[in-house]
């Protein structure tokens, strides 16, 4: 009897804990977990499972400062590809990232994943933000 009571209370606490997650947190989790699958399918081959890149050929995704400074351009980099010299972790990279024609929602998810993995912590990059950024693509 006692056991039932205790487990009942425990269950209640868990339910509360889950439902108490703020909407923001729920949204973030949705974006992040979806982004992880998209990352595996579209990005991981080149950028690596830990975002480590490949030698001097493919830049790592671990430079939080670069990601912060270029936050508004990241959507375009995915949609339009990226060419020319960039500096990541004070190392120069010059190559070409091919175009990946993902839907805006997919871009939002994968960017949320990348910018909150590999030591980065930038919060949710949501669909509205991606759509606004995409309009400014050159």
């Amino acid at each position, binding site marked *: 009897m006692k056991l039932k009571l205790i487990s009942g209370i425990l269950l209640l606490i868990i339910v509360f804990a889950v439902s108490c997650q703020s909407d923001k947190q729920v949204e973030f989790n949705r974006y992040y977990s979806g982004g992880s699958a998209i990352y595996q399918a579209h990005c991981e*081959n*080149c950028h*690596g499972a830990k975002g480590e890149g*490949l*030698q*001097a*050929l*493919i830049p790592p995704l671990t430079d939080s400062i670069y990601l912060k400074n270029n936050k508004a351009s990241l959507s375009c980099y995915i949609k339009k590809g990226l060419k020319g010299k960039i500096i990541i972790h004070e190392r120069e990279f010059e190559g*070409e990232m*091919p175009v990946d024609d993902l839907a805006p929602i997919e871009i939002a998810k994968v960017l949320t994943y990348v910018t909150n993995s590999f030591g980065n912590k930038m919060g949710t990059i949501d669909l509205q933000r991606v759509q606004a950024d995409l309009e400014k693509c050159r």
Partner: protein
Amino acid sequence: MRKLLPGIILLIFLSACAPKQAALPILGNREPITKTVDGKTVTDTAYATIPDFKFVNQYADTITAKNLNGKIYVADFFFTTCPSICPVMHRNMLNVYKEFKDDDNFRIISHTIDPKYDTIPVLKRYADKMGITGNSWWLLHGNKGDTYNIAKSYLQTVQEKNPAGQFIHDGFFILIDKQKRIRGTYEGTDPKEVEKLIADIKILKAEPEQAASK
């Protein structure tokens, strides 16, 4: 001492039972050869071997099968602008390179299947960016037909273009012994398979036949 004895005996038994390192198989087509030796008919097996070839490496040196005489080597097929599996393959191959780069009896050869774009300077730049130095990993440039033909002898399929305009190729690493026979194929995109490749190279190097042949 008395107390230790059973333990020692057990240890001896256990060490006697330790599994022997399995020998690597020999892959590819094989044909029986019947010869007459000293008046008796003997049947031997002829294994498929990698035929002679002529390619050019990233240093613009000509490389033929002779340059691989007396060497165990790993071969693969790639191209530098490959967006799909090549970066994974070479991220994994880098581990093989690091493990054996000081062994002059070991080589890695990577054939480009896009010789039009992957010219020798492009291959050299790729090697530099990958951090490949010295002669343990050659990136080979050659006539497209030659490359596609040699791929077949490595049991690989290479196609020029799929409908989307992309090259198609297998992502396998092929292990070749000093007799130019195929001793293993490994999925180059799978880190676990590549770990096995590294282990198998060590087993192969230790085979008496391999250790003896120059």
